[in-house]
C-alpha cells in the first residue's frame, strides 16, 4: 500500500487535507460574521463588501494568487508587517497555501451561510429577545442552531473548493514537494514528466475518493441535522 504512492505524493495528499482543513476552519467564523452582516445589517459600503467577497469567484485564480503575493509576500505590505512583528511568513509555506485556499473558498462559504441566515425568521429572534436573551445569546441559541444545515453546506463547499484549489496556490506559494505541493499541484507536476500518466491516474483516484467521502458524509450529517431542527 505504501509504495502505491511515493512519499512525496503521500505528503501532497496529507498537505492538501491539512491546508483545506485550516482554510475552512479559519474562514468559518469570518464567513459567519460577513454573511450575517450582508444578510441582516444595512451599512455604508455594503455593496462594496459584497463585491470584494465575491471577487475571487470571478477573477482568474492566477490574478488572485498574484494579488496575494504582492500583499502577503515577503516584500508585500502586509507580508512585511507580519514578518517583522510576528515572525509569520506566508509566502512559499503551507500556511500560504491555506490562505490562498481560504480566500478562494470564501465566496462559496459566505453564499451558503448568507442564504441560511436569510431563511431564519427574524420574528423568532425577536421572540427570543422578549424572553430575555441579549443579541449574542439570541444568535447562539436561535440563529446558530437554525442555520446549522447551511453551515454544514458552506463548510463542505469550502473544503471541496480548497481541496481543488490550484491556480492561486501555485502562483502564491509555488509547487515545492513536501512544503507547498498540494494534490492538484502534484498531479500537475507528474503530468509534466513524460510517462507520468500512471502516477497521475493514482493521484486522481485519491482525489475522487476524498471528494466522494466528504460529499456522502455531509449529505448524511445535513439530513440528521435538518430532521432535528425541522420541529417535527
Amino acid at each position, binding site marked *: 500500500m505504501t509504495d502505491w504512492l511515493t512519499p512525496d505524493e503521500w505528503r501532497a495528499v496529507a498537505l492538501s487535507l491539512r491546508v483545506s482543513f485550516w482554510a475552512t476552519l479559519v474562514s468559518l467564523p469570518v464567513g459567519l460574521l460577513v454573511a450575517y452582516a450582508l444578510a441582516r445589517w444595512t451599512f455604508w459600503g455594503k455593496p462594496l463588501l459584497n463585491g470584494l467577497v465575491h471577487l475571487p469567484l470571478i477573477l482568474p485564480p492566477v490574478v488572485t494568487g498574484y494579488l496575494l503575493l504582492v500583499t502577503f509576500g515577503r516584500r508585500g505590505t502586509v507580508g512585511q508587517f507580519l514578518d517583522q512583528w510576528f515572525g509569520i511568513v506566508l509566502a512559499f509555506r503551507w500556511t500560504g497555501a491555506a490562505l490562498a485556499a481560504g480566500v478562494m473558498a470564501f465566496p462559496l462559504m459566505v453564499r451558503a451561510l448568507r442564504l441560511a441566515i436569510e431563511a431564519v*425568521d427574524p*420574528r*423568532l429572534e*425577536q*421572540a*427570543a*429577545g*422578549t*424572553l*430575555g*436573551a*441579549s*443579541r449574542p*445569546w439570541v444568535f447562539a*441559541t*436561535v440563529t446558530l*442552531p*437554525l442555520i446549522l444545515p447551511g453551515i454544514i453546506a458552506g463548510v463542505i463547499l469550502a473544503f471541496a473548493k480548497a481541496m481543488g484549489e490550484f491556480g492561486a496556490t501555485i502562483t502564491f506559494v509555488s509547487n515545492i514537494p513536501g512544503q507547498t505541493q498540494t494534490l492538484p499541484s502534484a498531479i500537475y507536476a507528474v503530468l509534466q514528466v513524460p510517462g507520468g500518466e500512471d502516477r497521475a491516474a493514482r493521484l486522481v483516484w485519491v482525489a475522487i475518493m476524498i471528494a466522494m467521502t466528504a460529499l456522502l458524509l455531509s449529505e448524511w450529517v445535513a439530513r440528521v441535522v435538518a430532521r*432535528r*431542527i*425541522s*420541529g*417535527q
Partner: protein
Amino acid sequence: MTLQIALRHRFAGFALDVAFDAPPGVTALFGRSGSGKTTVINAVAGLLRPDTGKVTSDGLVLLDTAQGVNLPPHRRRIGYVFQDARLFPHLTVRQNLLYGRWFAPGGPGVGLDRIVDLLGIGPLLSRRPGALSGGERQRVAIGRAILANPRLLALDEPLAALDEARKAEILPYLERLRDEVHLPILYVSHAIAEVARLADTVVLMEAGRVTAAGPAAALLSDPETAPGLGLREAGAVLSARVSVQDDDGLTLLDSTAGPLWLPRVAAPPGTRLRIRILAQDVMLATVRPMGISALNILPATVRDIRQGDGPGALVRLDAGDGVLLARVTRRSALALQLAPGRPVFAILKAVSVAQENVGAGG
C-alpha cells in the same frame, strides 16, 4: 403594578398618538384592525422605537425618548405572546417553555409544573412545535412567556389565528391565568366577546387614537362608547354566581342584575361567572308581562337613552346592582314613553345567551 404609556409615531399614512394608564389586572386594547393596537404593545415591549414617547412601569422607565432612554427588549422583561406563537422549531416544548428561565433574573417565579398544569400541556412536553395544533402552540407560547418571569404579559390577539372551537378551548385557560397568576396583562383584541370575558380595563382605539378608556363593565355598557364596539355587539357585562343547577338543563345564576336562568353552565354552585348580555337580546316592557315564554323578567329603571343615527336607540338600565343595555327602536321608545327614571321590566330569553358570553368571573 401600573403601566403608563404615552406614544407618538408616524408611519406612511398612519399616525399613532396615544396616552393611557394600564392599572393592575387585564387591560384590553380594543379596536378594529389597523387602529394601532399592535404598534402600541410593540413599543411597550421594545420591538418598535416610536418617534416620541414614554413608557414607565411602576416608576421604572422602559422608554423615554426625551431622556434618550430605550431599554432593549431583553431588559424590559415583557412576556410577549405573539399572534403566531413563534415557538422555536429546533427545541422541544419543554425546552421552549424553559427558554426564558436561562435569562430570568432573580427568584424562581412561577414553577414549570404549575404552568404546565394550568395550561394543560403536560402531554406535549417532549414533542416538537411542528407536531402541535394551533391551539396547543398558543398555549405553549403563553406558558413560555410566563415562565420567563416577566413583569408584564403582553398578548397580541393570541386567539385571532384560531377557529372558534380552539378559541373556546383557550379562553378558560386565559381566565385561570388572570385569576390565579397575578401578572398584569396587556391584551390586544378586536373580538368584543374575548374582551368582555377577560378585561378589567378597556382602552378603546380608533385610527391611532384612544377614544375611550376605563373599567370594562362600565365602558362596555356605556351607551356612548358601545356603538364604537359595533352596535350588534353592544352589551352589558354582569358578575354572577352559580346558584342552582336544575334537572331540566337550566342553571339559575345570582347576578348583579337579579336572578337569571341560563342554559346549563357546567360549574358547581358558588362558582363566580362573568356574563355578557347583548343589548339586542333584551326586550323592554312597562308592565310585567304575563304568559310569555321568556324566563327572565328583571325589574329595572331607565338611566339614559342614546338615540343613534338609524332607527334604533340604546337604553341603559339600572337593574339591581348591575347595568343592562337594551337596544330598541326609536318608535318603541316613544310608544313606551321611555325616559330616565321610568321603571320598566327587562326581558331576556334564557337561550339567547351564547356559551362564548359566559366566562369565569374574576
